[in-house]
């Protein structure tokens, strides 16, 4: 792939646990991606607006507070409403298996849970973004 992957990383909700997302941001940068990290306490409209402005290929969100079943759907709805549902949404956090399945059915491309490596997410993102680009070409 010649073009660099552009990815927006965001922390929605009130949760302040940012260890994971900062590790991911550093790993994605080291893997040659363009990373925009929004910082904490972003509402779904703020995240989707930033993703459109920054013209990203993917949005990655991290939620460790248990509010994932509220926040992921709200982001998906906002993406649809703004016509931004061509952007890939993925995420990670403390998310039980049942919820993970439900979220992936709903349209979240992938949910990573504790123990996943940065390599897993880099590989996933490269493949998924390439697949989307080929499909839309």
């Amino acid at each position: 792939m010649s073009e660099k992957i552009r990815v927006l990383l965001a922390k929605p909700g009130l949760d302040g646990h940012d260890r994971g997302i900062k590790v991911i941001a550093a790993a994605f940068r080291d893997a040659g991606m363009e990373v925009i990290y929004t910082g904490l306490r972003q509402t779904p409209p703020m995240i989707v607006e930033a993703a459109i402005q920054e013209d990203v290929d993917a949005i990655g969100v991290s939620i460790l507070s248990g509010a994932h079943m509220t926040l992921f759907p709200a982001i998906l709805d906002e993406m649809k409403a703004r016509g931004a549902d061509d952007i890939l949404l993925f995420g990670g956090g403390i998310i039980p298996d049942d919820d993970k399945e439900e979220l992936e059915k709903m349209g979240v491309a992938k949910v990573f849970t504790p123990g996943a490596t940065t390599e897993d997410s880099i590989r996933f993102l490269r493949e998924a973004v390439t697949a989307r680009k080929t499909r839309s070409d």
Partner: protein
Amino acid sequence: MYDKKFIEKLTAKLSEWDKVAAHSRQKKSRPRFFTVSSVDIDELYTPDKVTGGDNGDYYFANLGLPGEYPYTRGVHHTMYRTRLWTMRQFAGMGTPQQTNQRFKYILASGGTGLSTAFDLPTLMGYDSDHVRSLGEVGKCGVAVDSLADMEILFDGIDLGKVSTSMTINSPASIALAFYLCVAEKQGVPFDKVRGTLQNDILKEYIAQKEFIYPPRPSIRLITDMMEYCTRNVPQWNTISISGYHIREAGATAVQELAFTLADGFQYVESAIEAGQNVDEFAPRLSYFFNAHSDFFEEIAKYRAARRIVAKRMKNKYGAKDPRSWLCRFHTQTAGCSLTAQQPENNIIRVALQALSGVLGGTQSLHTNSMDETLALPSEKAVKIALRTQQIIAHESGVPNTIDPLGGSWFVEALTDKMEAEAEAYFEEIERRGGVLACVEEGFFQREIARSAYRFQMEIEERERTIVGVNDYVEEDEKIDIPVLRIDPQVEKDQSAFVKKVRAERDPEAVKAALAKLRAVAAGKGNTFEAILDCARVYGTLGEMCDVLREEWGEYVEPPSAMVAS
């Protein structure tokens, strides 16, 4: 510690031994011998490795006796032979009614203190019916919007008998105000109320990130509350200066030690600047550390903490009361060390971590539940965690003697190294303009992020083994742990309840109390007294925080704090 002749003999013996060992040394069972904090550990520790070498004064200057300066061996003369540590399990979820039930369960199972976890909206100063609370109510802890919720939370629990810890920071004064109002209603005088407020805002900017206002007015909230408690609630531990979250965010043991103590010294300096007498407030300061997986490194950390605090409080801040010199601390096992894979293994991790806390001389301990990386802990997991402490206390024999590892050349050498490295950080913080400047400039945040990234890379490159994660992996593992879920009804009930409280109180009294709080916040006076008056008339947490937000503004992290250095 030893005479010259002994050291000479030892050096000669060591060089002979080294030649023989060289043969075995060519083969290594692993590429590096290093701690969880990535600190390399020597093959062998001998008496000459302990600072001071043959200096006979070393023992009294650096170790001394338990209960005596510099307290390296413990804060009490007889330690656990007189009183075991407090087994304090952190709990809180859903509605105040549900948490009240859990509290009663903990007390009935032999827990000796309560520890309250609040939900994120409470910690961020929003009522349950606020739009930003959506999906978060009752999830990470209990929702407390007003005095009415605190009344339910401690229903049937005598506040004159129990000691309660409340993990809350930005709105800490408000939580304490609600608690004191409950005591007032139970007829318990304020000087009989015992407990601890976390109230450590500096580590929020550094690690946990649940801040509301900018640092400087936040510090005022804390010093005002300290001043009030010194006069009226003398048994209350006003701040629990916390390294726990700094460590969870990815710091090394030395970073946890240095940044936490630097925060503590900042509170001391701020209170002195506000005109308070160090010996009046310092005895109520306590600390809170993490117990991570590297057994000896953790023990050395606790011992070094006691020594550093004693030396600074006495020599730098001129405290004369020995109680001001004490680093009393709570310990919690490391949530970040637990794995979602083969979660039962976490019971063993927690047991080892808890043992390091006890060998390190902790005053109280929380042991994590094995299922925490999956969801909120279930009752069974909470009970096993508590039983782990009871087994250490009653079966292991560890509490029989004080500081059993004192005099271990390894532990003493590591303790000295920790102290020296923490001192180097204090100098760097000073050079960068002090703790507040370092927070605002993102120094701590970048240092921690760098350590977190290094740790993750060590795992991914398999330089570091985590059982069940990057080695001894069970493919197609089925996790058989019941997951506790918070019913979405909690959010609806809690929102309805706060609306009802607002509708039923005296509106004029609330208006007047909030106006008073605004005037004090904008000008002079004690903010804690104004908050207590709002709490009494059922002003809500969100209303009080809104007033302060309007007067002081909201803090946004600088971009320099959002990257690894």
